[in-house]
Each structure stands twice: as structure tokens, then as C-alpha cells.
């Protein structure tokens, strides 16, 4: 891929606010994306991620704030003068042009002499040079997606924007495209800004993920970091699933804090907790939990919850999910690897749940589960709603 060797430029958003009539899509968003990175904006629909992308592309202008690419302020620059290309969710391939004309479109506008040979080169990169003479309607969805990618990458933009480009593909093709998109990014070294609501897609592909909610960035970091140490209930539940417990901190000596959850003492490493006093919300990922059919007893470095009763067992091949009702705590979700054949415990069994203290995390949210005056603005309320929805889905299944 020696032909495509331009490296990207830094993207900086400085206190960008976007208001539409009736609602605020972005609230003072500040963000720096270093050159050459693969950055994902992850969030549910309506969180402002697509608005952010459109502001970077120049298709929307921010109400206030600045957009900088490299060190140039492009806030007032029209889209066709920005060194940015977009892979649209709908691909937006021009239906009246051939694939080759589509890919050469941007190059011809900038007056490149070798537009067609470079377009062929880009089509070879996505292994579609043999369809260069066809019209977009004659291609499958996956092929159109690759053409859209070639059409954007061929211009060697400083920044490539991807607006849920895999959303329209079926699951298998999407998995393949995720790997291939990542390969291309590694090859061409352009800065990629990828917008998605698919947390698995974001985690597979991106170097850095910003989880967005209600026009703000909730948390930003490497995928593993976000997953292992979510800072808010929204992140804990949007990125995978979490078991969350709420209670007052009863002691915080040494390197752990101890939280009283309905009479049980649960320890969390101090370094992994955002708040160290008062009522806090703590959590643990379902796959970190172990099921026991007899009381394991207290031991150092292990949290124990139980006894509880298994009220749902759902087998999903690789693992089995158990929902355990623990009196006073609520439902605890446990993912167990299927290392033996069949479920380890049956529906209705009495079990204890344990996990290594090191796996727990403490959240920064205010722990009140009661709905506030404006529950829409509250990440906790969203997380609870999300959790209820997931539970309802599991019930149905």
C-alpha cells in the first residue's frame, strides 16, 4: 500500500455546542483525536455522535465552539474545502456514475492528473477493480460499502469519517468488514473517526472509544480500560453488562473500601472506585462471577453474595447466563463458561455468588435509584431502564 501513505492530522473539538430547535444535541464537547488513531464515538441513537461527525465534516455548523484539523481552524470552512472524507451510512454512491467514476470523483474535483489510475489503485485495494465499469445498483451491499470506503480513502484525507458504515450489513459480513477496515486503517495510517452504536464493533476496531450520552462524553479510553473500569452506570451497562449494587461505605482503610449492600459487606479496591465515602454504586461484570452450590464461607480477597435462588438459565453456546435472585440485593446476572456439558446448576437451585475483590469497580454516579425530577438527564436512570429492558428481553428468551 505504498501509494497511500499520507498520515492523518489531529482533530480537535473545542467546546462545541450544537442546539437544534427544541433540544441540545451537543453540550460543550471538547475532544482531541491524535493523528493516525482509530477513534470511535459510541452511544445510543440521539446521543449526539452523528451530529459530532457532521460538524467535523462541515455538513452542520456548531452553535458555538471551534473545530480544528491539524492546527487549522475549519469551523467556518465549507465541506468541500475540508481535508475530510466521509463513508456515509447509506454509502451515497452516485447512482448515475460507474464505480470508477464514483471513486475518481473527489480526485477529479481537486484536479489530480492521474485520477483514474489512482481510482483503479484504490479499487484494487478493496479488491473490486473488476467491477469498475458497473453501476452501484449492480453491486451487493458489502461491495457498495467497500466502494464507498475506496471513494473516501483514495483522496488521502487528513481525517476519514465513518458514519455507522457497517450498519446495513448482515452480522457475518459485518464481522469481516470490521477486521478489514482495521487492516486498511493500519495500512494507510489515516486518522479514522468512527461513529457507531454497536459496542462490540467499537471495541473490536478502535484504539480509543468515547462513550457519548446526551450530548456529552461520559468516558474516554482504550476499549479494555473502559470495559474493565467503567466510571458511570451508563458506561457500565452500555459497554457490556454489569451487576450494580448500591450502599454506604462502611470502611475505607488499606487499599479497599467496604460497602454495605443490604447487610452484606462487599469490598472494592480503592484505586478502582471513583468515590470513597457516602452512598456509592459498585459493580462487577457477570463473567467475573462464580456460582457455588454450597456456602463458600468468607475468605480474604473474595466477595460473597448469597444465598440466592436461580430463577432463569439461558444457554448461549459458549456460556450460560444465570439470573440469581438474592434477597435484599435484587437480581444478579452470572455468565459461566460452558466448561462442562450442560448447565452447572438447574433453575430454582440455591446458590452463592463469589468474585475476586480485584474485579469490582466503583462508579462516580450519585447512587440514588429513585427517579429524579428529570430522569431523562440522569445516566443512572438510563442505565436502570437499559438494565430492565435487557432483563425483559432475557425473560422473553
Amino acid at each position, binding site marked *: 500500500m505504498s501509494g497511500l501513505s499520507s498520515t492523518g492530522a489531529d482533530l480537535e473539538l473545542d467546546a462545541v455546542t450544537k442546539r437544534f430547535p427544541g433540544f441540545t444535541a451537543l453540550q460543550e464537547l471538547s475532544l482531541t483525536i491524535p493523528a493516525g488513531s482509530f477513534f470511535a464515538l459510541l452511544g445510543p441513537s440521539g446521543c449526539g455522535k452523528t451530529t459530532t461527525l457532521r460538524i467535523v*465534516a462541515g455538513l452542520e455548523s456548531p452553535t458555538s465552539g471551534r473545530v480544528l484539523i491539524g492546527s487549522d481552524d475549519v469551523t467556518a470552512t465549507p465541506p*468541500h474545502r475540508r481535508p475530510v472524507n466521509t463513508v456515509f451510512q447509506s454509502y*451515497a454512491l452516485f447512482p448515475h456514475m460507474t464505480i470508477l467514476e464514483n471513486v475518481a*470523483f*473527489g480526485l477529479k474535483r481537486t484536479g489530480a492528473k492521474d485520477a483514474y489510475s489512482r481510482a483503479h489503485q484504490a479499487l484494487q485495494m*478493496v479488491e473490486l477493480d473488476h*467491477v469498475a465499469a458497473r453501476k452501484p445498483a449492480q*453491486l451487493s451491499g458489502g*461491495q457498495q460499502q467497500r466502494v464507498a470506503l475506496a471513494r473516501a480513502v483514495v483522496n488521502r484525507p487528513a481525517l476519514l469519517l465513518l458514519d455507522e458504515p457497517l450498519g446495513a450489513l448482515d452480522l457475518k459480513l459485518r464481522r469481516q468488514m470490521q477486521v478489514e477496515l482495521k487492516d486498511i486503517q493500519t495500512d494507510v495510517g489515516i486518522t479514522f473517526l468512527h461513529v457507531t452504536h454497536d459496542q462490540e464493533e467499537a471495541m473490536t476496531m478502535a484504539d480509543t472509544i468515547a462513550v457519548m450520552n446526551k450530548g456529552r462524553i461520559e468516558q474516554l479510553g482504550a476499549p479494555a480500560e473502559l470495559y474493565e473500569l467503567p466510571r458511570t452506570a451508563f458506561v457500565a451497562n452500555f459497554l457490556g453488562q454489569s451487576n450494580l449494587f448500591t450502599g454506604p461505605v462502611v470502611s475505607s482503610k488499606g487499599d479497599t473500601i467496604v460497602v454495605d449492600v443490604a447487610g452484606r459487606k462487599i469490598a472494592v479496591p480503592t484505586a478502582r472506585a471513583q468515590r470513597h465515602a457516602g452512598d456509592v454504586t459498585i459493580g462487577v461484570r457477570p463473567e467475573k462471577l462464580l456460582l457455588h452450590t454450597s456456602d463458600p464461607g468468607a475468605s480474604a480477597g473474595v466477595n460473597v453474595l448469597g444465598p440466592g435462588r436461580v430463577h432463569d438459565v439461558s444457554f448461549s453456546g459458549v456460556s450460560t447466563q444465570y439470573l440469581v435472585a438474592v434477597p435484599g440485593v435484587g437480581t444478579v446476572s452470572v455468565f459461566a463458561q460452558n466448561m462442562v456439558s450442560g448447565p452447572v446448576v438447574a433453575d430454582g437451585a440455591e446458590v452463592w455468588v463469589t468474585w475476586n475483590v480485584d474485579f469490582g469497580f466503583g462508579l462516580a454516579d450519585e447512587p440514588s435509584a429513585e427517579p429524579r425530577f428529570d430522569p431523562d438527564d440522569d445516566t443512572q436512570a438510563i442505565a436502570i431502564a437499559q438494565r430492565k429492558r435487557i432483563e425483559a428481553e432475557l425473560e422473553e428468551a
Partner: protein
Amino acid sequence: MAFGAFGAAPGAVEVDAAPQRRSPVALLLLLPGLAYLALFFVVPFVSLIITSLQMPDPLGFGEPGRYVNAFRWENYVEVVTTYWPHFLRSFGYALAATAIALLIGYPLAYFIGVKLRRFKMLQALLLVLVIAPFFISFLLRTFAWKQILSDNGPVVAVLQSLTILPDDARITGTPFAVIFGIAYNFIPFMTLPIYTSLERLDLRYVEAGGDLYASPASTFFRVTLPLSMPGVISGTLLTFIPAAGDYINASADFLGGPDTAMIGNVIEANFLRVQNYPVAASLSILLMATILLLVGLYVRRTGTKDLV
């Protein structure tokens, strides 16, 4: 690279090979249309061809309107040598009027179909306004223009008082008035098909054009205009074809004068006044053939089959 995994994915469009069954019901439903065409197109057309080849009745003693069937192909040669200036004028006027109607109709259609997309009520209101002239008869409207543009009318008076027009100048009876009248009458026929195309235009293509470094003007000529070509083609055809045969605007009773007679006026005069039926019929056939030829070339040239 990694794309090899599914590089061999089927790319060609699968064509449904199963032959379509012909249902007798479909043919039955087609029958009224076919009968209509046979009765009102094929029969008059054959009759017109026969008339165009007639010769004066040798027993008619020069009385007008008496002709007998013959194969007098010289009729065609005579009308071409006599009336070729009218043919040229007709197509020239029609072309100019189509161009003017396109220049007025396209921006109008663009404004209603694209700019007002979010305001459905306003869009509907403006569409009604585009069609509103149809509520009044075509003849009345043209006659109204004659009044407005007449020698004693307000337009001439104002232009003369501003010394833009000399005192002895007039507007009616000039090619300008005829072309203006035709363009005016056909603007709705131009606007509506273009509106239909633009109203369906996916604005994401326009955004993609801007994203790929095309300036707004470049995006218009390379994306918006090509994608609205079906509307432009139907609009220009709906304007050009009737305009070439128009005989109201160019008539001396309306906006025209003796020097602006189009082929339609010649046909009308020969059929209704002079009663020279073979000349009128052969002119009609020639007009039809010329339009067919021009339209065929135009549609071929603009390549409608490649459009979506």
C-alpha cells in the same frame, strides 16, 4: 489482502429467468386503451395520410374543397418548398420557448422540491399556485396577455415613457411576444415533472458531492442535474412537442402577427379557411415526422435508459 475472503462474491445482478406468464385478464384490461388508440389515433392517422396524397377533383372546376383520392406525392415537395421558413420558425420558437421555460421552471421546481422539503404545507401551496393558471382557459389567459402587451397597454406605455422602446414600436406581433406566450403557457408542464424528480432526490448524494471536494456549483452540475434528468427530459418534451405545433400564441388574433406564423397557423389556415386539405394534411404528417425524429434523437442523446 483480507478482502480475498469474499472477493469472489457474486457481483452480477441476477435476472429472473422465469418467463412472465401472460394473463388473459391483463390483455382484457388493455382492450379499452387499445380500442381508444385504434379509433382515435390509427384511423385518423390513416385518413390523414390518404388526404395528404389527394389531388384536386378534375370535375370540380376549381371549386375549393373538392379533392379526389390519388397518389400525388408531389404535395409533399410543394409544401416543403413553400413552407420551409414556417417549419424553421416553428422549431426555432419552440426551442427558444422550451429553453426559457426550463430556465424558469427548474429553479422553481428546485425551490419547491428541495428547499421547501421541511415545509409540507408551503410546498403544497406553491404547487397549487404553479397549477393555478389551468383554472382559467388557455385562450383567455393568452388573450389577457394580448391586452397587457397591446399597443395601448400598460407595458408598451411604460417602456415608451422610459424611452426603452421607440414610439412606433410594438410588442404584440413580434417573435418576442410569441415566444414569451408559449413559454408562459408551458411553464407548469416544465415545472411539474422536474419537481417530481427533485422531490425524490436523495440529498445525501448532494452532501456526498460536497464531502468529495465538489463546490456547490460543481455538485449541481455533476450530481443534482444528472439525477433530475428524467424530469428535465419529460418537461422539455411536454413543452417542445406541443409548442412546435402551437397555433394560438403565434396567431394574429393573439400575440402574433403576419410575420410570426408558425406551421400550426399554416395548417389551420389551409384546413379551415382555404380548404386546401391535401396541403394541410401533408404539412401535418411532415410536422409529426419531424417532431418524432427530433425527439428520437434527443432521447437517444440524453440516454434516458441509463438514468435511474
